[in-house]
């Protein structure tokens, strides 16, 4: 056998027989392709994208209505609606970051936005799935992804309204929307998960856990990416010299005054805190 190997290496250059390196590469690529086709086959996800527009609208509407589901009610999970909701949330976040002139040190705004939204959706779903496994809940990972995704519809609505409506009572509006819309979606998700949990203590624990991470994420999205825009718009409105009627009017034309305005707004915040 070693003689044959030597012959192969010596004849590889002369007669064009592939070398050991290319054989290893071909075999490795074949194995990887087979593994991908076996474990990461796209056909596994195909049934979750077979939906009608009416079903999507129906589910979107019912995601905001806190209703205790019937005991024998079972739903078929799908991933089209949640994916589109997460993409929409990422788009709204990009728009917020642009308005707030938020800067990302290592990366792009789009990358940061996608990471935050998809990371939350998939990460929180896995976390809920792990805790529900411990609490012996009868929910699959796909069902949790489905519910969690549709619950993010409330985040889209709240952030969209909070971005486009700049009133004097910004925080009041946001907190009101946070409680009502975010709370409704959280309660709906909580009820669905609690229905599938048998032990009453685990039921309460899981319900509180799910609603807590849902509400805190909305708070994070607002205060991490929206705060600066509010301070600037407040300060500019109080100055009274630059009329701002709509949020799409960029703050760039007043860049020369921005430094003074921001420093004054910081002084006001310090005074408020004191």
């Amino acid at each position, binding site marked *: 056998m070693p003689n044959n190997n030597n012959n192969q290496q010596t004849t590889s250059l002369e007669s064009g027989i592939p070398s050991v390196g290319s054989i290893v590469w071909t075999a490795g690529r*074949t194995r990887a392709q087979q593994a991908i086709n076996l474990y990461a086959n796209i*056909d596994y996800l195909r049934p979750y994208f077979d939906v009608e527009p009416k079903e999507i609208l129906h589910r979107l509407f019912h995601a905001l209505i806190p209703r205790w589901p019937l005991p024998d009610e079972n739903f078929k999970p799908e991933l089209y609606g949640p994916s*589109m909701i997460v993409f929409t949330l990422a788009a709204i976040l*990009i728009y917020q970051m642009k308005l707030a002139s938020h800067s990302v040190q290592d990366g792009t705004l789009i990358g940061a936005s996608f990471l935050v939204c998809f990371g939350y959706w998939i990460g929180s779903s896995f976390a809920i799935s792990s805790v529900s496994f411990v609490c012996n809940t009868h929910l699959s990972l796909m069902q949790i992804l489905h519910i969690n995704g549709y619950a993010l519809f409330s985040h889209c609505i709240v952030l969209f309204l909070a971005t486009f409506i700049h009133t004097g009572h910004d925080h009041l509006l946001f907190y009101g929307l946070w409680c009502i819309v975010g709370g409704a979606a959280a309660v709906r998700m909580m009820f669905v998960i609690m229905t599938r949990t048998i032990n009453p203590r685990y039921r309460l624990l899981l319900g509180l856990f799910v609603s807590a991470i849902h509400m805190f994420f909305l708070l994070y999205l607002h205060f991490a990416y929206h705060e600066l825009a509010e301070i600037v718009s407040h300060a500019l409105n109080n100055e009274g010299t630059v009329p701002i009627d709509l949020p799409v009017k960029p703050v760039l034309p007043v860049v020369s005054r921005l430094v003074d305005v921001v420093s004054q707004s910081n002084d006001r915040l310090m005074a408020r805190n004191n």
Partner: protein
Amino acid sequence: MSWNSQDFFSSSPYNQQYTGSISYDFQQQQQQQQQNYSLSQPYTQYSNDNFIPSPYNFNSQVNNNQFYYPNHYIPPTATSNQNDDEPPLLEELGINFDHIFKKTKSVLNPFAIPDLSIRDDIDLAGPLIFCLIFAFSLLLFGKIHFGYVYGIVTLGTFGMYGLLNLMASSDKSCSGLFVISVLGYCLLPMVILSFLSFLFKFNSFINIILTIIFILWCSISASKLFTISLAMIGQQLLVAYPCVLFYGVFALLTMF
């Protein structure tokens, strides 16, 4: 459906499976080569051990008619030129102006049914030109966003390619080049919006309304082409929404 890297560039049928061998055996190949060489030998040896290249010239007598006479060589007719054998240059390059014109017309009128000939046509020249014009129009605003345009088109293409392959039926898979082609052609209204924003200063409210109209125009055109080519009946709205998000990002680039 097994995924090959070639599937992105050409659609493959559903049942295609990889059935190649896994291990590579040198000795087998060497033996096959030796057999090939040995098989060819009988044809070189014929009766009387004379080498006769053609089996039809089995004649020991010298036949003068077999000699080559230059006068017997009949040149090709004067009417036939070398160019008849070769396709036209544009056809060879894959640029079909008629298809480009029809596709542009189909994009400009989002409610018209596209022609049968352009339904599965893949063309990258038009999309490339539209993307370049869009990026150049952003230069008029002082924004050098060629990289952003390229990145968004790439990401959007991958996303739409994955989504369409998941949503379409398994026997009608689409290729990535087709997705790029459709998304690129439907960028034309965004190019018009970009130039309009440069030429005219609208009120911000009118700006928003105009932007929404143009985004919907692009999305309806793209979703119409996708659903007709992939036979996705009743799912145009589902395909249009990701297109709205895709072209909305371009609108954001224009506005900000």
